[in-house]
């Protein structure tokens, strides 16, 4: 016999992307995310200028994965831009201000200096948290890898990016963009960047052993 105030131990089922609002809103966000990351992964991020509001704000933070016990890839290429308020000196407001980019040109300049990337769009999860006629708020989570450089290897990492957008013309522009970069877990790294499996073939698979 037990008591009825035992706390639950099971977690609710983890679900895929959540879209609030109409199918039009969903289509708008899906297109926006696709377009945004296509340009972001290209060799010219200046093409994102029109995606931002004149008074937009952007900042990024990078952090080691707290659920991994073993040694992790370095995040040193993000140190200078890291606006993680837990790691910054609590009293140093000027540093906190400096790391918040305000306006389209400072934002684009900053985006252009961040490492070249390839995102795995198959891994993307989009959660829409706020929909109204005047604003949309949503978060994109997923995997990306940095381009190989002479001075560092290409690592697979997890990112989460929270966008706040307002309607503009037929689409929308970003007023707030918050990016956080975290090292991927081993399982995440293994299952990302998998191309679709080839169509099954009737001929027996030839295995070559060394």
């Amino acid at each position, binding site marked *: 016999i037990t008591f009825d105030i035992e*706390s639950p131990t099971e977690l609710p089922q983890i679900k895929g992307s959540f879209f609030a609002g109409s199918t039009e809103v969903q289509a708008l966000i899906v297109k926006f995310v696709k377009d945004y990351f296509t340009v972001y992964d290209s060799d010219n991020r200046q093409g994102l200028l029109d995606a931002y509001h004149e008074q937009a704000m952007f900042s990024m933070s990078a952090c080691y994965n707290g659920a991994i016990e073993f040694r992790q890839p370095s995040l040193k290429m993000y140190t200078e831009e890291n606006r993680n308020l837990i790691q910054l000196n609590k009293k140093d407001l000027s540093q906190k201000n400096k790391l918040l*980019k305000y306006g389209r040109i400072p934002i684009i300049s900053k985006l252009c200096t961040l490492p070249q990337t390839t995102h795995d769009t198959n891994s993307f999860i989009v959660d829409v948290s706020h929909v109204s006629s005047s604003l949309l708020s949503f978060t994109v989570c997923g995997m990306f890898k940095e381009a190989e450089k002479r001075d560092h290897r290409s690592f697979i990492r997890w990112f*989460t990016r929270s966008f*706040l957008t307002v309607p503009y013309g037929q689409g929308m522009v970003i007023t707030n963009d918050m990016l956080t970069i975290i090292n991927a877990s081993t399982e995440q790294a293994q299952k990302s960047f998998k191309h679709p499996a080839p169509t099954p073939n009737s001929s027996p698979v030839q295995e070559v052993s060394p």
Partner: protein
Amino acid sequence: MTTFPEGVATKVDIAVQAGEEFYNLYYETFDKKRHLLAKLYMDTAKLVWNGNPADGKEAILKFFENLPSSEHKIDSLDCHPLIDQVSGGQMTIMVKTYGTVEFSKNKKRSFQQTFMLTSQNNKWMIVSDCMRFQE
């Protein structure tokens, strides 16, 4: 050095200060006195928890009641103010956190969470809350 127009600079400072106070308060309340979270959510607040939506304070609190006991540790925090065009002049901020959480009898997971908070009668209230495990 980024120079903000004067009104923006003040808002940025307010956002940072509020975010730094909020994250400690929020996760401590979540882990130790979860029922008191009712005081932090607006009646019309929205939650998306790993793709599960809950609409309104009552539904959100009910959802939290069914979660196992928890222990959060926050490793990263960032905050922005909203511009007037979006907030309609009402002081509103975004707070983004990253950290780990252990729900009773479940493995330790890392997660991100994004909040929108607005000031009502001189108190910060949660407008929306979006949480996602890293997996």
